[in-house]
């Protein structure tokens, strides 16, 4: 199968769906002329006249107008440039977009997609490095997709572009350049369907995004020590695939939930709660979480490495649960 980058997979999903559906248009900062700061829209450059638009730096306007366009029957895809900037437009998102279908008693559909990069890169510091997907899982009213591979990116994003609900897509900065197999033919990946990225029998690691790759690396290292790790990539957080996670825990009896965002009240807590309730009799050790320390992401490279989790933290957590903690 041919291999393309994560970024190209997103571009393909946009290209295919924009060709199919004339109501899809996209706008944000630095996308029309530049093709997006991470190059995801390169394939759209010079095509789809008037449907790929640069905006001024005003998140409130970007997200607020997306709501209006969606209500007027369009399918806007608004880019948030950096996840950290979502806070600037949060009243439009949390107070309008995420509430609209509820407050109209479901009378209005709201097909819009918010998308953009999140997570760390090389020393982008506290205001350009956050992972804040938990907030969107916490507040009702938006579907949250967090792909980890080019294949998942394309399939999930195409589904997002057909959704009747608002969708937010978090793309990790360090994944844009990642290459992976993507078939030539069209496909869609349904929301709420986790992907077991590696099968194992001793410990289940539930994760998403960049931490999928860190977890796979940890699993490969641990295999040399005779520890068999199952890596479950949730792919979407709203909805998330309880069945796959619980079945995996019933098999391995031990669970680690790993994400890049802060450990305190990160979405891992929700997974851990559901698993202890649904699979209580199957657990042989307390559930362990992997996440960032409870501070903002430092600029200093060694400090960033210290604060943000990687494969070494996953290995440690796996060994902890195997030792019973």
């Amino acid at each position: 199968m041919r291999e393309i980058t994560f970024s190209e997979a997103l571009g393909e999903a946009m290209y295919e769906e924009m060709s199919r559906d004339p109501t899809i248009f996209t706008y944000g900062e630095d996308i029309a002329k530049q093709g997006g700061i991470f190059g995801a829209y390169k394939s759209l450059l010079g095509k789809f006249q008037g449907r790929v638009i640069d905006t001024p730096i005003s998140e409130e306007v970007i997200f607020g107008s997306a709501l209006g366009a969606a209500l007027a029957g369009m399918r806007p895809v608004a880019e948030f440039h950096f996840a950290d900037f979502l806070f600037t437009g949060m009243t439009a998102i949390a107070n309008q977009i995420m509430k609209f279908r509820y407050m109209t008693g479901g009378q209005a559909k709201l097909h819009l997609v918010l998308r953009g990069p999140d997570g760390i890169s090389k020393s982008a510091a506290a205001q350009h490095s956050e992972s804040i997907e938990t907030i969107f899982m916490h507040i009702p009213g938006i579907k949250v997709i967090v792909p980890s591979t080019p294949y998942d990116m394309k399939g999930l994003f195409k589904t997002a572009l057909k959704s009747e609900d608002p969708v937010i897509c978090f793309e990790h900065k360090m994944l844009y350049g990642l290459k992976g197999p993507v078939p030539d033919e069209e496909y869609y990946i349904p929301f709420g369907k986790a992907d077991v990225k590696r099968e194992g029998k001793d410990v289940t690691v539930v994760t998403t995004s960049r931490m999928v790759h860190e977890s796979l690396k940890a699993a490969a290292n641990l295999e040399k020590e005779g520890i068999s790790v199952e890596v479950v990539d949730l792919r979407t957080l709203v909805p998330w695939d309880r069945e796959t996670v619980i079945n995996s825990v019933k098999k391995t009896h031990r669970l680690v939930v790993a994400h890049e965002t802060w450990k305190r009240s990160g979405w891992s807590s929700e997974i851990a709660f559901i698993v202890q309730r649904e699979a209580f009799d199957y657990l042989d050790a307390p559930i362990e979480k992997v996440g960032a320390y409870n501070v903002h992401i430092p600029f200093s490279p060694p400090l960033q490495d210290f604060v943000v989790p990687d494969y070494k933290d996953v290995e440690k957590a796996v060994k902890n649960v195997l030792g019973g903690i």
Partner: protein
Amino acid sequence: MVEVRMPKFGLSMEKGFITRWYKSKGDRVEKGEPLLEVESEKITNDVPSPATGFVKEILVEEGSEAEVGKVIAYIAESEEELKEEVKKAPEKQPEESVPTESVQKEVKEQPLETPVRSGQTGFIKASPLAKRLAREHGIDLSTIKGSGPNGRIVEKDVLNALSKVAEGAAVPEGKAQVEKLSPIRRTIAENLSEMYRKTVLVTNMTEVDMSSLLAFKKSLTEKVSVTAILVKVLAQVLKALPKFNVNFDGETITRFESVNIGVAVSTKNGLIVPVVKDADKLTLSQVNAEIKRLSSRARSGELTGEETKGSHFTLTNLGMMRTDMFTPVLNKNEVAILGVGRTVKKVVVIEDDKFAVRDMAYFSLSYDHRVIDGADAAEFLGEVARIIESVPFVI
């Protein structure tokens, strides 16, 4: 001098009630001979003597209880020992003096150390999984020492305790070897126990005069096995009685046009049932060749999944060995199986009340009574016998 201790017959047994001493003080006793009878949890067991000698002392009388592991008697191994004074039993039980096998293996399961209890609540630290496993297998968590953090009992600890119980059960005495089932044996075991559990298995038996069939076999220029001839007979009967030419999964019955007959083959790895497909359409010579081919492939382990699937009825022929009647278990999804015993020359009564020496064999038809009635089975056996006993035999 050898101690006799109260053995442990069940995991939860703490005390035993001595219902009877078979021997009295001074009696001679052989090693392994029943020495006393113990009742616990409504089960009565004989306790064999751990040694040959004389009963020197009985410490716990009939009608009394003793805790598991407690010394209840002494056996003197010689007459001199019989006269010696009895020294007090040591508090801790030395390994050498463990009296019987059953005591020896049970002693291992007693707690080596006090289980972890927090405060005065008697709470035992165990993982949820460990608790569930212990509950399901009737294991008392207080008898297990936890290997987890702060002495928490985890899955591994319960599994270890379980395997000790299993070892205890599987190793009766003396030298023994523990062997895991091979994958093929495990499949056989699973299929058989599934069919045995799910079906209502009944076996009808009848004695069949094989003389005519054997005469026919002898008359053939080609060498053909009795099994091949029987397959042809069965194909004819299955055509006439289609009720038997089916698969049944507990809810639906699938009837077949074709007649596929499984033929049980014994191999060094276990029983395999390759299938003679369309047995009704093949000639006797073709059936014979097919059985030969399948058996040799079965024995060399070359059979493909296809060659063992799709049978509607099975023939298991033990005629070449010493078995007269038996109750075969059904092959997967089938409703009947015919077991053929050895052929023996017998004096039988024939027409006009005359005696004759005939080649007789027992045919045992096992069937699933849920879908096959006793009368159906009798009709089937009758039809098989009628064809085999017809003179001359024709197929």
